[in-house]
C-alpha cells in the first residue's frame, strides 16, 4: 500500500478523490454530516454489554446515545450515519421508537438518520472503509463515538478547519481535544495514555503515541524528524473525546490502509508517521472550556456520571429535561427527582438523581447516586456513589457502595454490596448475603458467550440467581488481531471492577480495563533485541520512514506472526514445489506492515527453523538434523534464492552473520527442543547454507565471533555445537588461503 502511494508522491495523493465527487461536494457543502461509531469491538463493559450495546447504557438515566445525538443536534448536524455492530437491532429499535428521532417524527432535528450494518466488520477501521465505499459523505463530516457526552460548540472549530483546508488541501482532519491538568479525575480513570506531539504555533499534530502502564518500556520514542521543527510539545494532559472533523480524504486514507483498525492507535499514528509519503496534515484543536468526555470504560462511565450530576455537562443534565418525556425537577439538597418519585419523610437523599415512580423507604440514605425508574428502595438502605438502573429492588437494611446495579436486579434484605461490584441484569441476591469485597464481584446471569451461567448460591445466597462472571480468557489470544489481545495477567485483573481501584497506585490502575491492543507475544522481547541492527539503515528500501521504533512493535509483531505462518505453510505444502507464491505473499506483507529488514530476517529465520525442527520430531519422520536442514532448505524451488535475497539480503558479511544470529535465536525459541539437538540443527543448517552458497565462511565466522551469540547460557550451549563446523571452516579457510598463497 504505502509503496504504491510512495510511487505516486505526496502531491498526487488527493487526486483520485476529485473524480469521485466534484458536483456532490459543491451541492452538499452546507449540509453538515456526522458519523456515529456505535460499536467498539471491546469487552470493557461486559457483562453489561452482553445484553445491551454500550451506547444504550444509561448515564444518569438517559441512554448514552441521547447525549451524542443531542450534541450533534446542538451543533447543527443535518445527516447522521450510525454504524452498529453488536446489538444493532437494539440501537435501531431505540432510535426508531424514540419520539424525537424516529423517521416519522416532525420534530427530528436531523434531516436523516441512517443505520449502516457491516456484517463482517471486526474493527472500527472496517466501518470507515465501508463508509468510503458507499460514497455517502459529501464534504467535511464529524466523526464521533456513541458514548460521547459533550456540550462544546463546534462552530469555531469547523470554521478553523475549513480555513486550514482552504489554505492547504492536505489538511484533512482536526481532532478536538480537551485540556485538563494531570491530576484530573478523568485522566486518572483512563488506562491508555495518549501522547500527542503537537506543534504549538499551528496546532498540527506531528506524532501520536500511546502508553499504558503494562508496557515493558515506559518511554516514548520520538521520531528524529521532529527535531527539524522549531518547537513541539508533548502533551499527555489531553482528554481525547474522539470528536474528529474529517474531510473525505480521511476515508480514502483508511481505505488505502486495509489493516488499520483503531482511529488513534493505528490510523493516526500511521498517517502521521507516513506524512512524508501521503502529505496529509492532521491538526488538533485544544478546548479549554466546555465538556467532552467519552464513557468508554467503566471507570470513565463513573466519571461521566459524576460530571452529569455535578452539572458540568450543562445543559445536558436531568433538570433541563433535554430528552422528550423527561420530567425532572430540582429539589433541596441538590437532588433531581422525576415525576412520581415518592420518598419517605425520614429518608435522606442528597446530590442524587432519581427516576420516575421510584419509591424510597423510611430511613434510607442516598448520596451522590443515580437511581433509575420504578425502583424500590427499602427501609434503612444505604446507597453511596452508585449507579442503579431501572426496575431494581433493594431490600431493607442493605448497603450498596460505589457499584453498578443493572436493570431488574433484586437485592435481598440486609445485604452488603461492596465497592466496585458490578451486578448485571436480573441477578437476584438472597437475604443477608455479604458479597466478598476482594476481588470486587461481577455477577451475571450470562456467561461471556451469552449462555446461561449456573447459579452459584454460595455467592448469591438462598433464592438468588446469577454467578460470578468470567471473561473469555482463551478466546482472547485468537482475537489479538481485533485489537483485543490482552495480557493474560491484565485480563484476570480486569475482572476486578475498575472503580474500586481508582485510589490505588499507578501500577495497579493498569489492570483496570481490558486494553485495546496489548499484544503479549512471547517473541516481542526478542523482536526488540533484534531490532537495533547496524545494517538496516544502510539498505533500507523505504528510506523515507524515519525509523522503526518500539511503538510500532505491535504492528511488527502482527507482521512477524503472519509472515512466519505463511512461510511455514508454504514449506509444509505437499502439493507444490514452488516457493514463488510464498515469496510474493511475504513481500506483500512486508510492504503492508512497513517491516524493517531486521524483522524480515527474523521472520525468515524463524520460519525455516520451525520447519526444520518440525522435521526432527517423530511424527514428521524424525529426520536427522542434517537431513532435516537439507529438506527444509531445498525441498521447495526458490527457497534458497529467497533466503539469499530477502533473508540475508546480500553478500555483506555483517548481514550474513546477522542471519546466522537470527537462526540461533529462533532455535532457542523452539519449544521442546533441547539445547544439544538445537545446536546440532543449527550446525546442520549453517553447513547447508554454506554449501548452498547463501552464507560464506566470513559470515559464519563473524557470527562465531559476535558477542551477542553468546549472551546467555542457552545461546552458548547452542553455539558450542557448531564448533566443529567453525573449526572445519577455519581450516578450509586456511587451506584456501594457503592455496591462494601457493598460487
Amino acid at each position, binding site marked *: 500500500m504505502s509503496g504504491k502511494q510512495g510511487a505516486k508522491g505526496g502531491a498526487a495523493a488527493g487526486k483520485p478523490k476529485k473524480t469521485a465527487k466534484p458536483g456532490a461536494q459543491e451541492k452538499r457543502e452546507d449540509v453538515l454530516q456526522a458519523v456515529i461509531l456505535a460499536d467498539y469491538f471491546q469487552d470493557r463493559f461486559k457483562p453489561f454489554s452482553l445484553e445491551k450495546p454500550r451506547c444504550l447504557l444509561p448515564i444518569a438515566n438517559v441512554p448514552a446515545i441521547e447525549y451524542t445525538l443531542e450534541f450533534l443536534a446542538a451543533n447543527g448536524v443535518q445527516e447522521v450515519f450510525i454504524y452498529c455492530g453488536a446489538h444493532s437491532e437494539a440501537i435501531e429499535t431505540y432510535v426508531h421508537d424514540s419520539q424525537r428521532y424516529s423517521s416519522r417524527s416532525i*420534530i427530528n432535528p436531523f434531516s436523516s438518520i441512517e443505520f449502516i450494518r457491516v456484517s463482517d466488520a471486526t474493527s472500527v477501521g472496517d466501518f470507515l472503509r465501508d463508509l468510503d465505499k458507499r460514497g455517502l459523505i459529501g464534504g467535511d463530516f464529524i466523526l464521533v463515538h456513541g458514548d460521547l457526552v459533550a456540550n462544546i460548540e463546534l*462552530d469555531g472549530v469547523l470554521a478553523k478547519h475549513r480555513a486550514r483546508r482552504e489554505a492547504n488541501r492536505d489538511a484533512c482532519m482536526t481532532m478536538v481535544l480537551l485540556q485538563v491538568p494531570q491530576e484530573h479525575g478523568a485522566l486518572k480513570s483512563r488506562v491508555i495514555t495518549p501522547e500527542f506531539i503537537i506543534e504549538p504555533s499551528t496546532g498540527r499534530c506531528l506524532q501520536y503515541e500511546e502508553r499504558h502502564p503494562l508496557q515493558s518500556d515506559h518511554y516514548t520514542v520520538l521520531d528524529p524528524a521532529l527535531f527539524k521543527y522549531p518547537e513541539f510539545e508533548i502533551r499527555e494532559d489531553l482528554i481525547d473525546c474522539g470528536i474528529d472533523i474529517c474531510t473525505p480524504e480521511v476515508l480514502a486514507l483508511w481505505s488505502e490502509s486495509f489493516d488499520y483498525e483503531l482511529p488513534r492507535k493505528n490510523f493516526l499514528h500511521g498517517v502521521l508517521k507516513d506524512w512524508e509519503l501521503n502529505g496529509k496534515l492532521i491538526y488538533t484543536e485544544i478546548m479549554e472550556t466546555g465538556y467532552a468526555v467519552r464513557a468508554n470504560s467503566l471507570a470513565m462511565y463513573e466519571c461521566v456520571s459524576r460530571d452529569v450530576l455535578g*452539572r458540568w455537562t450543562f445543559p445536558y443534565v436531568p433538570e433541563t429535561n433535554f430528552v422528550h418525556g423527561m420530567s425532572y425537577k430540582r429539589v433541596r439538597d441538590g437532588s433531581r427527582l422525576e415525576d412520581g418519585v415518592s420518598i419517605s419523610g425520614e429518608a435522606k437523599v442528597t446530590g442524587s438523581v432519581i427516576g420516575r415512580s421510584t419509591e424510597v423507604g423510611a430511613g434510607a440514605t442516598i448520596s451522590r447516586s443515580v437511581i433509575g425508574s420504578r425502583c424500590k428502595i427499602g427501609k434503612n438502605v444505604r446507597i453511596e456513589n452508585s449507579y442503579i438502573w431501572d426496575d431494581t429492588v433493594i431490600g431493607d437494611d442493605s448497603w450498596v457502595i460505589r457499584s453498578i446495579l443493572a436493570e431488574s436486579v433484586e437485592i435481598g434484605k440486609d445485604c452488603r454490596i461492596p465497592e466496585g461490584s458490578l451486578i448485571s441484569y436480573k441477578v437476584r441476591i438472597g437475604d443477608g448475603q455479604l458479597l466478598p469485597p476482594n476481588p470486587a464481584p461481577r455477577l451475571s446471569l450470562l456467561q461471556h458467550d451469552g449462555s446461561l451461567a449456573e447459579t452459584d448460591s454460595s455467592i448469591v445466597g438462598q433464592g438468588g440467581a446469577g454467578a460470578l462472571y468470567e471473561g473469555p480468557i482463551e478466546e482472547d489470544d485468537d482475537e489479538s488481531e481485533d485489537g483485543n489481545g490482552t495480557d493474560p495477567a491484565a485480563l484476570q485483573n480486569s475482572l476486578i471492577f475498575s472503580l474500586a481501584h481508582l485510589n490505588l497506585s499507578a501500577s495497579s490502575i493498569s489492570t483496570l480495563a481490558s486494553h485495546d491492543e496489548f499484544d503479549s507475544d512471547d517473541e516481542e522481547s526478542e523482536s526488540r533485541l533484534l531490532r537495533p541492527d547496524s545494517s538496516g539503515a544502510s539498505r533500507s528500501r523505504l528510506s523515507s520512514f524515519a525509523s522503526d521504533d518500539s511503538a510500532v512493535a505491535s504492528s511488527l509483531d502482527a507482521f512477524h506472526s503472519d509472515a512466519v505462518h505463511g512461510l511455514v505453510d508454504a514449506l509444509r505444502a505437499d502439493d507444490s514445489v514452488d516457493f514463488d507464491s510464498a515469496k510474493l505473499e511475504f513481500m506483500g506483507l512486508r510492504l503492508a506492515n512497513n517491516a524493517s529488514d531486521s524483522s524480515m530476517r527474523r521472520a525468515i529465520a524463524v520460519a525455516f527453523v520451525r520447519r526444520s525442527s518440525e522435521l526432527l520430531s517423530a511424527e514428521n519422520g524424525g529426520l536427522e538434523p542434517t537431513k532435516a536442514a537439507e529438506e527444509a532448505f531445498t525441498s521447495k524451488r526458490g527457497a534458497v534464492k529467497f533466503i539469499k535475497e530477502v533473508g540475508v539480503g546480500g553478500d555483506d558479511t555483517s548481514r550474513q552473520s546477522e542471519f546466522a544470529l537470527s537462526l540461533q535465536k529462533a532455535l532457542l525459541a523452539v519449544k521442546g527442543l533441547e539445547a544439544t539437538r538445537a545446536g546440532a540443527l543449527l550446525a546442520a543448517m549453517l553447513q547447508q547454507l554454506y554449501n548452498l552458497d547463501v552464507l560464506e565462511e566470513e559470515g559464519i565466522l563473524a557470527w562465531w565471533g559476535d558477542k551477542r551469540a553468546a549472551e546467555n547460557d542457552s545461546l552458548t550451549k547452542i553455539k558450542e555445537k557448531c564448533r566443529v563446523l567453525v573449526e572445519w571452516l577455519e581450516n578450509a579457510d586456511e587451506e584456501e588461503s594457503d592455496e591462494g598463497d601457493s598460487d
Partner: protein
Amino acid sequence: MAPSQAGYAPSLDKLLKSLKNHPLEASIDALIFLLTRRQVHGDDCAIATAHILLQVVARSKWNDVDQLLARVQKAGSRLVHAAPDEPVIGNIVRRVLGLIRDEASEERNADDLSESASDIQTLTTSSSPPPRPPPLVRSTTAGGSMLVSKSMFNLLSVADPADLPTGASTPVSQAQPASIQALRSEVIDGIEEIMDEISQADDQIASFAEIQINPGDYVLVYRPSKTVEKFLVKAASKRRFTVFIAGLEPHKKQGAEAPYAALRKKLNAAGVNTVNLASNGLTAYMARVSKVVISAKAVYQNGGLLVDSGSCIAVQAAEAYSKPVIVLCGVYKFCPQDPSEELSSGGVKGNSSAEVSYAEGAEVDELEVENTVTDYVRPEHVDIYLTNLGPQTLHHFAGILADHYKPEEMLLSLQLGEA
C-alpha cells in the same frame, strides 16, 4: 467550498428564517430545544416566543376561540417549562392569550352592534370582511361574576367569549370561516404589535436616559446587557459622565476581545470615561458612585426583580451606601405573579463550568459547584423602574399590570409558572 457560513449551530435567526418551511410542531420543538440548550436566552426569549405564538395562531387548525386559546396555551406552557428561569416567556404567552380574548370579545361587540361597524373599523387595524361571532357551544347564562371562579376550575376553557362581561347573550351564528379568518388576522396583527413593542422597548427606555443621568455622574453598571448599553450610549450623546463596568467574567476565553470593548469604544468616542472593575472590587467604588443602573430579566408584581446572577451584589452595595438603583425593563417584562420559591431562594442552577473550569483539576471531583444563573432582588432595593412607558414606581404596578393582562391570565400564573 465557500467558507462563508457563520456556523452550523442552530440559532434563533436560523429558526426564524426557516419558520415557513417547517411544520408548526417542528418549529415549536425547535425553539424548545434552543431554550433547553440555552442557545436562546435572555431578551431573545420574548421575541422568540412571540414569533412562535404567531405561527401557532396563523398556522394551527382551530374552529373557535376556545380551541385557539387551548393551542396557544399548550404551546406556551411547553415553552415556559423549557426555560424556567425566563419568566418573560410566560408574560408573552399571557399577553397573547389576553389579546385573543380581547379580539374575540370585540368581535362579539361588533356583531351585536352591527350598526356601529365604523367604530370597529377604527378599533381594528385590518380591513377584513364583517366579523362574525364564533360558535357558541354553551349556554350563555354565566354572568361576569361567575368568571373568576370558573376560570379557576377550568382554565383551559374559560375563554368562551360569551362569558365575558362585555358580551351579551347572542344567538349562535351561522357563517364561521369568515369570522375565523378575521379573528386570525386581528390576533396576528396584535402579536406583531407586541413584537414591535419588544423590539422598540430598548430604544424607548434609552430615550429617557438624559433625564436620569446628570452631568458629572458616576454610573455603575453590572455586566451591562444590551438594554443598558443602549441606555448608556444614548446618555453619552447628551451628557458627560463616568461609567464603572463591574462584574467582568472570571476567566475570559483565549483570543476573545477584551470584555465590553465595543461598548467602551462607543462611550469613549462620545467623551464618556469608562473604568473596568475587577469582579468584586465594586464595593470599594460605591462611595464614589452616584447611581447604579441594571437591567432586569423580569419584574414581579411585588416589585422584586429577577436579574442575571451577580447584579445582586451591586444592588446591595448601593443599598448600603444609599445610592439610587435604576432598573431598566420593558413593560413586557412585568410579570403578573409573585416569584416562585425556586427563583427567589437561590435561583436556577446553570453550567458549573461557567465559574470553575472543568479543567481546574482534581478538586473538581470532590467539589460541589453550584452556579446560580439568576438572582432575586427584593423590591425595597429598587428606586426607579425605568420602562418604555417612562419611569415608574411600585405604586404604578397594579395599573400597568391591569393594562397589559386580563384577570384570566393573571390567574394562569399558577399553571404557567410552576412545574
